[in-house]
């Protein structure tokens, strides 16, 4: 199968076959990351720009390692230390980066839709590393990869997403990806953070964590996003964690072999207790490892599209 996309901006636009193709490519990349010499020459001479308009440690370093393992030339660009502070527009920034020879731009932006704008304005390939409350495709792909690795399949699994669904781009991407691959999705959180409009075929909404946990194969915990004002939607963190925090006790309701995931960074004692975070069924650190392989696959497939079509 040939990958027919110049950009990877959302899970919503990908077909199930395209998602599986990315996951299969990521499996081969994972083999590379498990070698002693973890570098291949595939993207030698190709310039990749990491354009980050929002603080990020995990995603940015994961993309950076992925780029380095593929031997790309890297330019890191963060909004706080750049011309953006001097008033440059997003499309002007992009055009300048393109003039410097950037082939692929990895962008993280607080505004939903910013990667689309960029894709329209430049001829570089755009990889969305998270835009506002819209999508976070690389996180979703690494979650799907990890679920497939642990469970051997995604179809017909019961996956529960817990927390601030309203403000979460991880949730939006994951709901799209899980449904496309045939999983059943449950959402749970305070009513103010789980609006009705998320209900659709394959998605069920709950407000009670204990009820939602019944018969669940995978739990994806979302972070309480202080920067996206999660806190304005419920009375207090203490109350939130009492009702929606995962503990050793309520975890017993889920299936015995339930898999616990979290996109990080964890607020220990808020979304889950330390006991749960360090439980043998928690694959939070495996998600981080898999993130590198998945991002290598995204870079490789976009670069191969460029080599075939430009």
């Amino acid at each position, binding site marked *: 199968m040939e990958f027919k996309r110049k950009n990877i901006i959302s899970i919503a636009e990908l077909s199930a076959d395209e998602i599986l193709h990315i996951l299969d490519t990521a499996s081969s990349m994972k083999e590379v990351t498990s*070698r002693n010499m973890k570098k291949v020459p*595939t993207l*030698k001479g190709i310039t990749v720009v990491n354009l980050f308009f929002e603080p990020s440690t995990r995603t940015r370093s994961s993309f950076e390692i992925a780029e380095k393992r*593929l031997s790309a030339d890297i330019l890191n660009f963060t909004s706080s230390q750049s011309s953006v502070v001097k008033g440059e527009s997003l499309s002007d920034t992009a055009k300048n980066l393109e003039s410097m020879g950037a082939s692929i731009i990895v962008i993280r932006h607080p505004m939903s839709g910013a990667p689309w704008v960029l894709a329209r304005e430049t001829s570089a390939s755009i990889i969305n590393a998270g835009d506002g409350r819209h999508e976070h495709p690389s996180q979703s792909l690494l979650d799907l990869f990890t679920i497939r690795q642990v469970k051997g399949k995604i179809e017909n699994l019961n996956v529960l997403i817990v927390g601030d669904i309203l403000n979460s781009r991880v949730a939006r991407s994951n709901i799209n990806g899980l449904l496309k691959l045939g999983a059943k999705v449950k959402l749970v959180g305070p009513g103010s953070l789980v609006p009705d409009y998320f209900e659709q075929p394959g998605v069920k909404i709950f407000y009670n964590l204990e009820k939602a946990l019944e018969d669940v194969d995978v739990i994806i915990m979302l972070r309480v996003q202080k920067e996206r004002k999660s806190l304005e939607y419920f009375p207090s963190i203490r109350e939130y964690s009492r009702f929606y925090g995962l503990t050793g006790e309520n975890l017993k309701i889920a299936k015995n072999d339930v898999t616990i995931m979290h996109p990080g960074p964890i607020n220990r004692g808020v979304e889950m207790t330390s006991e749960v975070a360090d439980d043998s069924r928690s694959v939070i650190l495996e998600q981080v490892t898999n993130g590198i392989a998945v991002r290598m696959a995204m870079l490789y497939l976009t670069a191969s599209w460029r*080599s075939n079509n430009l």
Partner: protein
Amino acid sequence: MKEKTLLSSKDLERKTTRIVHEILEDNNDNNDIAIVGIKTRGEYLGRRIVEEINTIEKKEIPFGTLDITLYRDDLRNNLALPELKETNIPFNVENKTIILVDDVLFTGRTIRAAIDAVMDFGRPANIKLAVLVDRGLRELPIQADYIGLSIETVSSQKIKVFLKEKDKKDKVVLLYNNGI
């Protein structure tokens, strides 16, 4: 295109057996050899070779497979990229004699990529090359150590290798246009 059979199933078996014996003759202290098949058909040939060596020598020679896609030089040269397949080198290559196995030796670019890939796993003592068919027309200074069949070709011709494991039959054919 017209078709001419170069090797029948029986020929192919004899050629493989001869390669096996040449490998053993060259490496009489064969404690340090390992066979690495280059995906896709080199993997099947490599597996046949290693199984024959193991039967004759009554031991377990290490065997691995290599996908060289990530090492190709055409990502920057507008050529279609095949899908990635899994590489699996389950042994330490340090100080071993690595025998690369492929079906057809042509431009030498695949082998150049394979050598780079093996080197990334460590520093072997030697790297040797076994191929079923050497069709000439090299673009790089690369040569095979063990060759089933050497044949002069022109670049418009094609060599097709069929192997039971993938193609349901064993056969090597030459495809050519009228005249050449």
